[in-house]
């Protein structure tokens, strides 16, 4: 393969960047799109080119062929997506607004805040359900007989109050919604942030559930968080994060098609 290459680092000669390095930095550029400012992106791509070109120059001086030197330089620089993730995470975590956020990390703090608030809200709901004195049950616009015509015994249908549906529906929906939000808001390692934040939250839920005994709803909720919220939140964040990346890459491709690329 004939790869035009020059050791001249003059940016004016960018047409002479080897194909493999050009592809690498273009992928890096696309992976950074939408996550760091254009000026920073340009600097990071320039720096990657500087490192790769310098490594290739050094490799050839040590007697490697250009192809070998390029291959070794790219291998040493690391997988392009891992490098892009390192940059994106670095910028995302930069300038923490409080010591707590600095301690936890911005991504963990966001995931912990969202899932923690959702858990707290559920416990408030649970407290209301268990302790609020209600003289007359709030009925949905269906009579038990109408419901039983659709869902006959022995399907469980303890009551028709909105609080029952809230207690049942809320824990089912929350991990999907919050997993999706976390995946969108945190650019890198969003699923890991869900996993890390849900550990202490589930532990608190077990403690809260123990305090609510002999009512077992609290403990059931804690178990539900471990077996449902953690995996569903994790997987939804994976999906959401993946789709967000795909969208950014498509947007960047569209932008690159209408404007001359920096590396061309």
């Amino acid at each position: 393969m004939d790869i035009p290459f020059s050791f001249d680092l003059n940016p004016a000669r960018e047409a002479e960047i080897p194909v493999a390095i050009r592809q690498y930095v273009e992928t890096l550029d696309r992976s950074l799109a939408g996550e760091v400012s254009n000026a920073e992106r340009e600097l990071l791509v320039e720096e990657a080119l500087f490192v790769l070109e310098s490594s290739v120059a050094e490799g050839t001086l040590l007697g490697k062929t250009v192809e070998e030197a390029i291959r070794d330089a790219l291998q040493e620089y690391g997988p392009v997506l891992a490098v892009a993730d390192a940059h994106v995470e670095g910028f995302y975590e930069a300038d923490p607004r409080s010591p707590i956020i600095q301690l936890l990390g911005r991504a963990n703090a966001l995931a912990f805040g969202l899932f923690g608030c959702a858990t707290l809200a559920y416990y408030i709901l649970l407290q209301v359900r268990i302790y609020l004195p209600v003289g007359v049950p709030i009925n949905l616009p269906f009579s038990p007989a109408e419901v039983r015509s659709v869902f006959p015994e022995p399907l469980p249908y303890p009551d028709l109050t909105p609080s029952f549906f809230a207690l049942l529906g809320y824990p089912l929906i929350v991990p999907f919604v919050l997993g999706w939000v976390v995946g969108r808001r945190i650019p890198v390692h969003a699923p890991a942030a869900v996993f890390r934040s849900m550990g202490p939250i589930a532990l608190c839920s077990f403690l809260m559930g123990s305090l609510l005994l002999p009512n077992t709803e609290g403990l059931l909720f804690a178990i539900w968080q471990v077996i449902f919220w953690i995996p569903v939140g994790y997987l939804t964040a994976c999906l959401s994060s993946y789709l967000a990346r795909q969208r950014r890459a498509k947007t960047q491709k569209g932008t690159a098609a209408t404007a001359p690329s920096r590396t061309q």
Partner: protein
Amino acid sequence: MGKDEGFGLGGAQTVLLSLLSERARHAYDIAKEVKRLSEERLPFHYGTLYPTLYRMERDGLIQSEIEQPSGERKRRVYSLTEKGKAEADRAREAWNEYASVMNSIVNRNTQAS
């Protein structure tokens, strides 16, 4: 040391503090110096280097500025802050203490004979 083995983030930070205490360096210079000093026994991927640099900058240990020598590409040059210099001294002392203790335990039979 195996190809995929590196060193933990704490170790990486100690190495970076030590290298930057000599002078300001860019990422390529740091990686090259690690390779040279370790005789290529410490593989230092940029995917590891950058998170450590960002974290150290966030912790106020290092600062960076953009450099572009004439006719060359732009790059970020890192240098120690005052807090970083103090941390470099502390890390060096801690490392020497650790190495000394470990050496006296692990190599006690060799030293005795």
